[in-house]
């Protein structure tokens, strides 16, 4: 983890009407897919906490950050950045058929995984009911309901889902109790992370196979088999 200065250079609405911002910053500050960066505006003393920013896209000048930005941020605002924090996606090198499942409030956090995998010779399919941002031609997209019949296709699945939906995942996939997925999977769990791993405060606690795990510290990306769902 490091401490950097950054600057908001552009703010726009993404497809789901969330604000996303381009943060100009050193390349070392840019989080990998699924990691997060803690950002705060030093000129806004009323802000109680920093904002957890996820990677949506990257250029040599910085990165596009999601999810919704504080409305007080304006282009030109200076930011203090701490991170990158947490564990990101780690796709095995031999993945040939990548399944992506969007169960959060945006697909933007999955886009870096899609971009990265597009450089390989593999196939990839996205299952989600969310609007699809501009994506590589190699990506096929289907409604979420198609996933149930396609679970045997991928040899790896990357999920993006909110903490509240973890307990519904088995129903969503129509899997019986005690049965797992036919392939390995990782899940980016989206949750408020007020302490950013400083305090084990418990706000982002997630039931695990044994005890609980913290999204801020042990995640935000988890091997699906390590958590209770």
């Amino acid at each position: 983890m490091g401490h950097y200065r950054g600057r908001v250079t552009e703010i726009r609405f993404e497809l789901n009407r969330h604000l996303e911002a381009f943060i100009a910053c050193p390349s070392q500050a840019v989080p990998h897919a699924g990691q997060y960066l803690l950002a705060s505006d030093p000129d806004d003393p009323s802000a109680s906490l920093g904002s957890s920013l996820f990677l949506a896209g990257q250029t040599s000048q910085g990165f596009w950050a999601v999810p919704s930005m504080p409305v007080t941020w304006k282009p030109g605002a200076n930011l203090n950045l701490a991170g990158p924090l947490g564990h990101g996606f780690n796709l095995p090198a031999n993945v040939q058929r990548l399944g992506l499942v969007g169960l959060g409030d945006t697909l933007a956090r999955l886009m870096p995984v899609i971009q990265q995998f597009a450089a390989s010779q593999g196939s990839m399919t996205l299952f989600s009911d969310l609007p699809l941002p501009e994506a590589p031609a190699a990506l096929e997209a289907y409604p979420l309901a198609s996933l149930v019949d396609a679970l045997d296709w991928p040899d790896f699945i990357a999920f993006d889902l909110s903490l509240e939906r973890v307990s519904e995942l088995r129903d969503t996939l129509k899997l019986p109790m005690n049965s797992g997925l036919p392939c390995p999977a990782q899940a980016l769990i989206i949750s408020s992370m007020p302490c950013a791993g400083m305090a084990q405060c418990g706000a982002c606690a997630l039931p695990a196979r044994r005890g609980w795990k913290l999204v801020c510290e042990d995640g935000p990306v988890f091997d699906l088999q390590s958590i209770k769902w």
Partner: protein
Amino acid sequence: MMNAAGSLGFSPDLHSPVDWSRLGAFVTNPVSLQPRTAARGSRFSTFPGGFLLHSGYPNLGLTNTLRRYSKHWNASPLPVIVNLLASSVEEVMRMARQLEPVEGVTGLEISLPNNATPELVQAFTRAALGELPVIVRLPVERSTELASGAINAGASAISLAPPRGAFRDQKGAWVQGRMYGPSVYPFSLRVVQELSQIGVPTIGAGGVTNLEQVNAMLAVGATAVQLDSIFWREAGYNIFP
């Protein structure tokens, strides 16, 4: 200055960016006799000027906490104060006796239930007293009512737990929890002033976000000041540059 219970975990992380030389003591997250899991339902919600946190104070329980952290406490560059989350006088007594011989533990801070009576405050305080100094962490809303009882029972000082708040969120759901953030500070400062005026040794806490506010709390009579969510804003960097 020191951290408030719940703000920096169970032992000082010497690899974190926190400038430990600015702190005079480390206070652990609350530790209960038995393990506790995180609260169910909504645990975090923001409002202008702060946020509500309802975590349930998850922890491993005292025995497992000692197994995992006592080595770190012994190696800590700061005196370690263990915060106890007890539900009965017997629990306070058992935990206090179990902690007294642990190397590196230099004090106890007892958290009290929000509905604590003056009698319970005195009983908890007496149960904790032994070889270690005892700080009693009182609900800030009721601290002026309860503080004298704690001090008369033998506590070295009192500290202030965050006030509790509630509101309906944007989805209409009722959320409640402990209040943190800059909006809490004026209330905390007033309470510290009142307690100091009646001669209660008080460790001020609540909404402190800059050095001027620390100094203001000391100026109205606080013996020390605890910091909480300010550590989280930049993951331990730039606390008071």
